[in-house]
């Protein structure tokens, strides 16, 4: 029986629920006796110069071993500016000079024998600044917004201005989305040991290879001198995908002290350690005929970027030309330099932000025309990718609409706002389309089979907590032809075959493709040994005629002529046999098809019209992401994605004091992620498709799981109340 497609429980689940799984902050690298602790002192101004650092009290405090500032920090080599997913994302070299670019930037690091001593000493460091007036938000700097000349101009379809001029109806609206922080449960943790031979780094990261290459570059090492390990992750959502200062300053501390140093950022520091989802203003104009068929989409965005970052920020409108078949589409983005940490991807940097305005505007157009919002989207279904003009590699969007609507009961919807009630509550139903580019990264895998018949699959990837260990096991077991109980997965170590980053919804596709190739290569290798082995029942058979089932190899048509893997290895005195697989993604240049995942969100909210409180009471999400490797972990991922979308719609925003560019809600009581009471029953539907252009038909789920949820909720709030809130999140004050 094939393991792929089965709802296998997480293979590491038992370790996690019993506490036996050791996360990075739990892990000293040996017996722990050598371990010391680092705590960062962070800037309390957002722009300016450090004029003095008085560390006398801190140095005199108990247990202090080292105090690092820009005066004594190791000099770092500049990291070449790269694209956002390049090996090193943050180009700021921390502790190199007296400049402060954002509040929360590290200005000193204290190393002490215990965490308590290091924390206390850090609180005694007195830093004086010559503060300058910062740009606090993109609104303060909007007059200086600039085009990013280093960014490829976004695709333009037809002539949007002409399309708007020809439209019978034009919707022209401006939406804002706030800065948000990722807030994985596990904060950033790093432990570094620096010896003459090797630098060993345990770090909570979505990309071990990026940390390796980034540290090697900044400290002038060869990549093979750096080993990076990240076995278990407590979430990331993009925040652990970037190169950021905690790993750099921990490495500095380890080098200076010669000790094994651990640094765990506090929750408050998480608001400046990893970057954030950018703040954006999105003006959308939709032109349509009376029947709802779009004649034009024009989207003009302004997003913030940091004051020090010299790599092109990502372009939130990049997917705007994808969902609908408009003949004329244009999308632009300008940037404002703000004294904030550099924006980084957060559970789709593109679709998760830029489609909020498109999906909200589509709902406004539907209301304006008196057309059902779902019907409006059907009428604008794109038979080909409007952006590239290419055919879809596969597209289950219409079936997502149909099955999602049926499960939800969408046809029962009364189109009139404020028409549906449940006692004192107004009931609203809203929906949205979701799309997400389906890609993968170059990935290598190794599968090794032992003489006991047990096998291991190794990939230098990471498991964010989403199930990578489990799907690797399933795919490799099928490819080799053994039960999942005989296959074990290893990941999260740069000593393993190279894997890509766990971001961009790429992990499942990349890991599955490489694991399958390696497993199949190993199977073929053992079959070749067997057919050439006089002692084997398979001797002389054509390799193509040998089948494998449950670890048993036999000749097609004669199940009695066969033997088990273990027997072959033992007879040939082989301790183990291994094989590798290399997945190379199809190049984006010269593509003949457009590869996307699709989805549709249907949601119900209940609004207390007097008090302004909104509760999501039901949510149905239908997703076409090719073939689902594991419906159990996949469903879990969709639930998490919808919860994150509820936060984006209703509760989450990073608040900045516009006088000094400092975050004022840097805590879990101030920054509201949804709690259990905010989360309704969530129904995930998988519309499965074979995709001949994608290995294993795996499109990835991580981001499509949350894209579409926030605009669907905002649309439902409008349907409930008749009030359109165009500034997320929709907190009670905005509905009073």
């Amino acid at each position, binding site marked *: 029986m094939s393991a792929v497609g089965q709802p296998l429980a997480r293979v590491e689940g038992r370790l996690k629920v019993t506490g036996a799984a050791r996360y990075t902050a739990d892990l000293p690298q040996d017996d722990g006796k050598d371990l010391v602790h680092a705590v960062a002192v962070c800037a309390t101004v957002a722009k300016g110069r450090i004029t003095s650092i008085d560390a006398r009290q801190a140095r005199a405090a108990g247990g202090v071993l080292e105090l690092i500032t820009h005066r004594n920090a190791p000099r770092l080599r500049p990291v070449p500016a790269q694209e956002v997913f390049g090996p090193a994302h943050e180009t700021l070299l921390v502790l190199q000079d007296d400049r402060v670019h954002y509040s929360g930037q590290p200005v000193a690091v204290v190393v002490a024998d215990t965490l308590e001593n290091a924390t206390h000493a850090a609180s005694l460091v007195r830093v004086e600044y010559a503060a300058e007036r910062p740009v606090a938000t993109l609104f303060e700097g909007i007059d200086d917004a600039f085009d990013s000349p280093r960014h490829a101009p976004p695709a333009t379809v037809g002539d949007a201005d002409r399309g708007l001029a020809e439209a019978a109806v034009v919707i022209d609206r401006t939406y804002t989305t706030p800065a948000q922080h990722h807030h994985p449960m596990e904060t950033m943790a790093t432990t570094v040991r620096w010896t003459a031979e090797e630098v060993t780094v345990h770090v909570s990261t979505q990309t071990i290879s990026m940390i390796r290459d980034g540290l090697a570059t900044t400290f002038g090492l060869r990549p093979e001198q750096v080993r990076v390990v990240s076995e278990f992750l407590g979430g990331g959502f993009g925040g652990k995908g970037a190169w950021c200062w905690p790993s750099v300053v921990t490495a500095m501390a380890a080098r200076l002290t010669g000790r094994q140093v651990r640094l765990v950022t506090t929750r408050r520091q998480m608001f400046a350690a990893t970057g954030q989802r950018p703040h954006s203003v999105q003006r959308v104009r939709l032109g349509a005929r009376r029947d709802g068929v779009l004649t034009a989409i024009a989207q003009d965005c302004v997003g913030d970027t940091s004051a020090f970052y010299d790599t092109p920020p990502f372009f939130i409108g990049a997917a705007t030309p994808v969902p609908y078949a408009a003949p004329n589409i244009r999308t632009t983005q300008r940037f404002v330099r703000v004294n904030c940490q550099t924006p980084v991807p957060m559970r789709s940097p593109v679709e998760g932000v830029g489609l909020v305005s498109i999906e909200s505007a589509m709902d406004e157009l539907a209301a304006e025309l008196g057309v059902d919002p779902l019907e409006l989207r059907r009428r604008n279904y794109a038979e080909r990718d409007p952006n590239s003009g290419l055919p879809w590699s596969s597209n289950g969007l219409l079936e997502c609409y149909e099955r999602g609507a049926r499960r939800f009961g969408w046809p029962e919807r009364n189109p009139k706002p404020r028409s549906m009630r449940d006692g004192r509550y107004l009931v609203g139903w809203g929906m949205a389309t979701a799309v997400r580019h389906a890609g993968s990264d170059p990935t290598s895998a190794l599968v090794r089979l032992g003489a006991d018949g047990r096998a291991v699959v190794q990939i230098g990837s990471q498991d964010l907590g989403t199930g990578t260990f489990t799907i690797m096991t399933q795919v490799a077991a099928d490819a080799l032809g053994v039960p999942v109980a005989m296959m074990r997965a290893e990941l999260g170590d740069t000593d393993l075959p190279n894997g890509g980053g766990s971001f961009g919804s790429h992990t499942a596709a990349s890991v599955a493709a490489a694991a399958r190739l390696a497993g199949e290569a190993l199977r073929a290798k053992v079959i070749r040994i067997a057919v050439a082995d006089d002692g084997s029942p398979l001797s002389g058979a054509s390799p193509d005629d040998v089948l494998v089932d449950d670890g048993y190899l036999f000749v097609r048509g004669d199940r009695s002529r066969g033997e088990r893997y273990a027997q072959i290895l033992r007879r040939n005195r082989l301790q183990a046999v291994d094989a590798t697989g290399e997945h190379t993604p199809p190049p984006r240049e010269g593509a003949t098809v457009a590869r996307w995942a699709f989805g549709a969100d249907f949601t119900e909210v209940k609004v207390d019209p007097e008090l302004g409180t909104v509760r999501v009471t039901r949510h149905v999400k239908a997703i076409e992401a090719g073939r689902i490797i594991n419906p159990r972990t996949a469903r879990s991922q969709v639930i998490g994605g919808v919860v994150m979308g509820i936060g984006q719609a209703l509760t989450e925003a990073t608040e900045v004091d516009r006088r000094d560019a400092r975050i004022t809600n840097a805590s879990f009581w101030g920054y509201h992620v949804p709690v259990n009471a905010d989360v309704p029953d969530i129904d995930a539907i998988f519309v499965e498709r074979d995709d001949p252009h994608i290995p294993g038909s795996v499109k990835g789920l991580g981001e499509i799981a949350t894209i579409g949820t926030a605009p669907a909720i905002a649309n439902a709030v409008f349907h409930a109340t008749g009030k359109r809130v165009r500034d997320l999140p929709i907190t009670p*004050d905005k509905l009073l």
Partner: protein
Amino acid sequence: MRPFSYTTVSSVRSAVLQVSPDPKAQYVAGATEVLNLVREGQIAADRLVDIRALPLTSIRAGADGLHIGALARHVENHPVVRRDYPVLAQALLAGASPQVRNMFTPGGNLLQRTRCSYYRDVSFACNRREPGSGCGALEGNNRYNAIFGGSDHCIAVHPSDLAVALTALDAVARTQGPAGARAIPIEELHRLPGEEPHRETVLEHGELITGIDVPASRFAARSHYLKIRDRASFAFALVSVAVAVDVRRGVVRDCRIALGGVAPRPWRARAAEAALTGKPLNEASRRAAGKAAASGAVPRRHNRFKVAMVERAVARALSEVED
């Protein structure tokens, strides 16, 4: 974190003797609040005196009312509290998650510090935390801050839900200090900031809350707590309302209306009580009480919504105690 010593005490007398003479000593019970404050540096305690072993855990219900020990556990589950003082049980349930409720104590809850952003992040200016340093909230992100009772020096909001309910029940804190025992109405326990926001309560240093008395009343049984917040649970109030009414023959003879999330202490809405008293409880009187409750508000740039929210919350809470 700042090093501190830790001792336990077994009698109220020795507790007071240990803390009173030492300005850097601080009581701790459930530690759901004090430990955070010590860690983050809002309070500079050199010595924590743990009072959890004190015999202050009883809950007694009698004809004269309710006597709640300062360390009583799970008051919200007490059958008499649930039946005769529903506003109290509801406020406790709305006040914290089960995990926090397993640890916290009623006495400590009354003395929790404001959740004003500028107080909680020690790198901001805050007159309450550091006298004379300024107030970041006045012109800053003051969406959560006070619309009543603030001053030019501080517009912090007291975060306790329990204190709001107790204020609506005319409850009194019993204390033991170096100068002896006294009783302080909950409504008067917290000072308004005026020019000295750092003087947060009327308690002397070392004065320990030993219990809370809730007098028997004709309005306690018909009471309700409503809390409006940014998410469904585990968030501090934007606005909360405790109402208690004595309605006889269709007319409100007596009532209490107290507000949370809007002032540096639980805020008695006396104008609303006056507007309601003598009236039948109906939509018109509820609306009028709401209007009266919001009168005199001094909103700031980001919290103007609280004025309308108070009006509606009071009316809504009253509708919950209507027949």
